[in-house]
């Protein structure tokens, strides 16, 4: 292992090679008189022909384009400290594309391309990993001089004149600065310490997760056992490249893409089948988003919220997303069961046959053809407003007690239940057109309602009363024997 002096010498060598490189570079110029290309030293061309920039850069003189390199500020700071103890920085190139843009991680490999980055001459090369570097054609060298990073790059198999070239380095800000643009509106310092649990990562949950990550929420628990399927794509944040992947993995990636400092715990499970885990995670969360597509999971979550005294935001779309609603549970207030017990069971949107079959929303006797006909998904733009309201309610709840730009929303969003209509169809057929609606409800506006707490709610009341609890006795059964086998 080299000592600090050797490292410094190497740094100087690489720097010098790079600085000398400019003089050896050539431009390819088309000469209209001869009809040929000819090479001229860079900077000596005086207009008697066109510089064939693209071919110059990507063809004969490949890899001479100045690379753009992104480094993470926090990792650089840690690397600077570790350099005092070690003479090399283990690192990986996270993303390489055809645009000369490179994301270099100085810590762990978190993504797809297992590339090895070395400081030449100092670290013993692993040949099997080096082959990946060759495939990509570039080798990188990160130098830290007084904690200031320089990144140098050259082809793996350099031709004559292909020297180390200094890249343009951009820093991805550290955690405290990443969301500085939101300051004044959101208390990002508060949000980064909040944990949000999202149950259901479909078209609702996926968008909400990403919005909350963009707002600076620092910790997530993601629950969904489903994988991305073709029919998801029109409304989900996933892309065709994600087909077949677990939604928990896809959304984790999306969250970290927005906030690389977020903590994400993934649970690819059916919450109805692991209630101890559900309760445990609800307890750890500051707020729970319920974005599932069936009432069984909503009831289970509702019970967990009541028991653990946590805030929950429920959202759903009704048939073809002609409208939808949002319900907020606050400890001590009416629960989701109080809402549906009050006759608010809506004919929900069925967006997926397999899921609807699984929980009985499409009965087993419905033929495959009829089941397909029951799938009535709405547009992504129709569920956006509902997701948006869920996000706003979440941010208000998470920011409560702090002065921020959204504090005033606490005076607006006082209701337990919010109703939204996208089109004047079915449930909303009698609503008035937006112009001149007068005192009548109309579409594309939020309406709020206070929900009464049910005195005998089976989930949130201490004095439950069950349906069917009357005084009549069932006669004629005194002498029967029931089958106990």
């Amino acid at each position, binding site marked *: 292992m080299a000592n600090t002096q050797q490292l410094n010498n190497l740094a100087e060598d690489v720097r010098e090679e790079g600085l000398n490189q400019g003089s050896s570079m050539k431009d390819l110029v088309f000469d209209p008189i001869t009809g040929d290309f000819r090479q001229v030293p860079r900077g000596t061309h005086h207009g008697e022909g066109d510089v064939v920039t693209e071919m110059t850069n990507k063809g004969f003189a490949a890899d001479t384009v100045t690379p753009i390199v992104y480094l993470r500020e926090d990792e650089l700071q840690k690397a600077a400290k570790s350099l005092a103890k070690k003479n090399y920085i283990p690192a990986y190139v996270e993303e390489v594309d055809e645009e000369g843009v490179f994301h270099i991680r100085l810590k762990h490999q978190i993504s797809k391309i297992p590339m090895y980055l070395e400081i030449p001459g100092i670290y013993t090369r692993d040949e099997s990993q080096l082959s990946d570097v060759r495939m990509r054609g570039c080798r990188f060298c990160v130098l830290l001089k007084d904690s200031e990073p320089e990144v140098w790059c050259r082809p793996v198999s350099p031709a004559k004149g292909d020297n180390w070239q200094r890249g343009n380095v951009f820093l991805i800000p550290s955690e405290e600065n990443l969301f500085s643009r939101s300051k004044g509106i959101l208390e990002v310092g508060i949000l980064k310490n909040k944990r949000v649990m999202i149950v259901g990562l479909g078209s609702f949950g996926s968008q909400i997760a990403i919005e909350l990550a963009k707002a600076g929420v620092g910790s997530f628990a993601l629950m969904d056992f489903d994988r991305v399927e073709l029919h998801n794509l029109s409304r989900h944040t996933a892309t065709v490249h994600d087909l077949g992947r677990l939604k928990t993995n896809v959304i984790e990636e999306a969250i970290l893409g927005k906030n690389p400092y977020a903590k994400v715990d993934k649970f690819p499970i059916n919450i109805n089948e692991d209630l101890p885990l559900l309760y445990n995670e609800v307890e750890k969360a500051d707020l729970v988003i319920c974005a599932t597509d069936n009432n069984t999971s909503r009831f289970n979550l509702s019970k967990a919220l009541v028991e653990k005294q946590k805030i929950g935001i429920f959202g759903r779309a009704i048939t073809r997303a002609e409208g939808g609603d949002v319900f907020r549970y606050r400890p001590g207030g009416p629960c989701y069961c109080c809402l549906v017990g009050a006759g608010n069971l809506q004919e929900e949107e069925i967006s997926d046959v397999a899921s609807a079959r699984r929980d*009985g929303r499409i*009965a087993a006797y419905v033929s495959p053809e009829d089941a397909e006909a029951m799938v009535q998904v709405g547009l992504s733009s129709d569920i956006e407003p509902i997701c948006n309201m869920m996000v706003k309610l979440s941010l208000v709840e998470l920011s409560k007690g702090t002065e921020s730009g959204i504090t005033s929303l606490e005076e607006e969003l006082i209701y337990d239940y919010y109703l939204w209509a996208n089109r004047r169809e079915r449930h909303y057929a009698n609503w008035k057109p937006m112009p001149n609606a007068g005192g009548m409800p109309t579409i594309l506006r939020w309406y709020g309602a206070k929900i009464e707490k049910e005195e005998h709610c089976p989930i949130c009341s201490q004095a439950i009363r069950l*349906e069917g*609890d009357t005084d009549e006795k069932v006669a004629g059964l*005194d002498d029967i024997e029931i089958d106990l086998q």
Partner: protein
Amino acid sequence: MDKDRYNAERSLLSRKFPANAFRFFNMEEGASGEQYLRIGARTNSGNVYTLHMSLDGFPFAQPKVFVTRMLKDSKGNDMNSASSAMHTLSAERGWTRICHYGPASWTPAVSLYKVYVKCRLWLEMYEAHLRTGKPLDYYLNHQY
């Protein structure tokens, strides 16, 4: 099902039925295996059936309800498949399964007794079907 709910259900059934007509299984704390209720039913014609209510997921999902044998329809066929006309779902364990509540109309406030009442109604209509040959949905509306 948690303890409070179990006590409420048992209390309600105890007021409705004689002790010999129903029994819960595997409800004690720490018990393993399926939690279920067996409950007797006598139709107006005097026939006796035993209903098996599977309580996994109850009360946040509707219980599966079976008649503890394979019933035959008026043509002598096993009632073992999901049928909209007969208000049945796919049989399990060789038992006919009754379709009673759909998920859209289910709430945790519905008691096992109320489920029983719907199934008792189903049994009456089943016997009417045996007498007339008319499907059950001639008598019973669909509820989702």
